[in-house]
């Protein structure tokens, strides 16, 4: 059989990826969608191995070693990670994907350099290969360093030399850094241009690697807090694009199809997230978030204690829980679920959860955390649906959410203007669990805290929720 027919396997694999992505978009079919994606990958690998077998034999040593080593490490990491560490893990895997594409490009280029008979013949063939290799390296290395930095930002910091001091990941971005980004990008394209006329020059190869790694760091360094998910999503898109460019080098259809599918999907997701936060992509990328313009808090508010809140909540008919970033940080989702169960048992209260599209560190982050705590999926209500229910709610309990509830977003001015928010201020009573009155990532003071019907529980989410639950049990 002609090995070219084996490419039909890639068509099957591409179809499985398309079905997989489609099914991942619906709650009921999502697990099947993921299985289709995995099956597509298996088909792609088997097709490749079959093709190599027919074409010219296989030297198994490196292949088996790589498959077993990578697969084993990936599986162990995936089963051992805490659900709360999910966003970091996605960022890390994403960086590995980008690096893999760039390394394949480098390996392919190295082959020509060491063995000039394998070099694509001069003219179009060589130009396409060099251009694709350059772009794949640029996008791939940017993805690697950008994702690694994003991972450490999501973690909040890192330990120096394992046992050393905890170093906080910096967020730093003076406006002149934007000039550096543009300069690095222009330099990268300049080097790719130079490679086209001098394809055997290895110093150009290293130059593009160095510049791209630096660009990834500089790109992510100024971005912080609530903007991190947007960046991780953008990097996810880039890792797909890198794979597609690699497909152009080795002339492989499934790399091009799967890579551009992921590139497009990641980009769409990025735009959806930007829209929900009322920010534009260029805003996220070129303005250091919440840098210097934070409003200082001048007003004060007397805090309440859990016993008061427990008394007020006694007999409530309907309670809406509004989780945010703070719930993820203090990991109090189990206490939140216990609170909801207590209310349902004791007062037969109707409890719902209001999920803002950008609550937490990633879209859907709240869903995953609450699902881990066994909260039924039906109780998680999206913003557009739940907003009409706030006026009927006896109590809205806000846990570590700030900007997503700030009424200032309804105005025409300020950083939050126009961002869709949860109408928490319409509930009859508001309870807010938060460490302090400090501003959120947008740097805007929140009027919600100072309303007469608002009770503030100042403290760590986990401790406050535990105290509140105990107070309710005793009442």
């Amino acid at each position, binding site marked *: 059989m002609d090995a070219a027919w084996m490419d039909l396997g890639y068509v099957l694999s591409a179809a499985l990826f398309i079905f997989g992505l489609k099914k991942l978009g619906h709650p009921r079919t999502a697990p099947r969608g993921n299985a289709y994606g995995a099956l597509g990958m298996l088909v792609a690998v088997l097709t490749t191995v079959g093709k190599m077998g027919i074409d010219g034999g296989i030297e198994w040593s490196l292949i088996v070693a790589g498959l077993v080593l990578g697969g084993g490490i990936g599986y162990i990491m995936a089963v051992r990670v805490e659900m709360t560490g999910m966003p970091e893990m996605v960022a890390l895997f994403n960086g590995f994907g980008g690096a893999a594409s760039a390394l394949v490009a480098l390996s392919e280029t190295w082959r020509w350099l060491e063995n000039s008979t394998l070099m694509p013949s001069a003219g179009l063939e060589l130009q396409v290969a060099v251009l694709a290799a350059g772009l794949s390296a640029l996008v791939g290395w940017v993805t690697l360093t950008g994702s690694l930095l994003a991972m450490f930002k999501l973690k909040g910091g890192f330990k120096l030399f394992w046992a050393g001091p905890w170093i906080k990941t910096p967020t730093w971005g003076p406006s002149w850094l934007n000039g550096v980004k543009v300069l690095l990008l222009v330099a990268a394209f300049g080097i790719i241009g130079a490679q086209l006329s001098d394809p055997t020059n290895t110093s150009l190869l290293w130059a593009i690697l160095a510049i791209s790694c630096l660009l990834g760091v500089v790109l992510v360094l100024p971005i912080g807090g609530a903007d991190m998910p947007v960046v991780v999503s953008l990097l996810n898109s880039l890792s797909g694009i890198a794979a597609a460019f690699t497909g152009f*080098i080795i002339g492989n259809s499934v790399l091009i199809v799967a890579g551009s599918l992921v590139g497009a999907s990641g980009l769409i997701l990025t735009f959806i997230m930007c829209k929900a936060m009322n920010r534009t992509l260029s805003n996220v990328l070129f303005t250091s978030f919440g840098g210097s313009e934070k409003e200082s808090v001048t007003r004060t508010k007397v805090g309440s204690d859990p016993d008061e809140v427990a008394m007020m909540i006694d007999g409530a008919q309907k309670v809406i829980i509004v989780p945010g970033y703070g719930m993820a940080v203090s990991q109090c989702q189990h206490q939140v679920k216990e609170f909801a169960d207590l209310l349902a048992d004791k007062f037969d209260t109707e409890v719902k959860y209001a999920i803002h599209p950008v609550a937490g560190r990633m879209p859907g982050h709240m869903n995953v955390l609450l699902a881990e705590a066994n909260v039924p999926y039906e109780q998680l209500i999206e913003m557009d649906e739940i907003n009409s229910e706030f006026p009927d709610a006896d109590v809205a309990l806000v846990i570590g959410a700030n900007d997503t509830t700030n009424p200032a977003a309804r105005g025409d001015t300020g950083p939050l203007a126009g961002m869709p928010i949860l109408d928490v201020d319409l509930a009859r009573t508001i309870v807010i669990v938060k460490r302090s009155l400090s501003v959120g990532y947008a740097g805007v003071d929140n009027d919600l805290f100072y309303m007469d019907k608002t009770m503030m529980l100042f403290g760590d989410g986990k401790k406050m929720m535990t105290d509140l639950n105990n107070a309710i049990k005793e009442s």
Partner: protein
Amino acid sequence: MTPEALIASITLFVLSIFLGFELITKVPATLHTPLMSGANAISGISVVGALLGANVAYEGGQTLVSGLLAFVALTLAMINVVGGFAVTNRMLSMIAGKKRGGA
């Protein structure tokens, strides 16, 4: 790559990008994290390129250095693929499992 093959590749590239846009526009926000993670696993497709490069017998002329580079690529891509699909499955089994299980 011949001009014909190049045109075919560019066609695939452009059409797949359009297809990707259409596929994703209809996804509810609640599934964005699993979707991002699943799509991320699919971007590990460069495992195919890494396999070709790590096979030092293939097409002749793979050198030790290029083979080793591809081996590292293969390992990283496999971490991305296996880890990505496994972690997505874990997330989804929680969400969907609770839904089916009911009370």
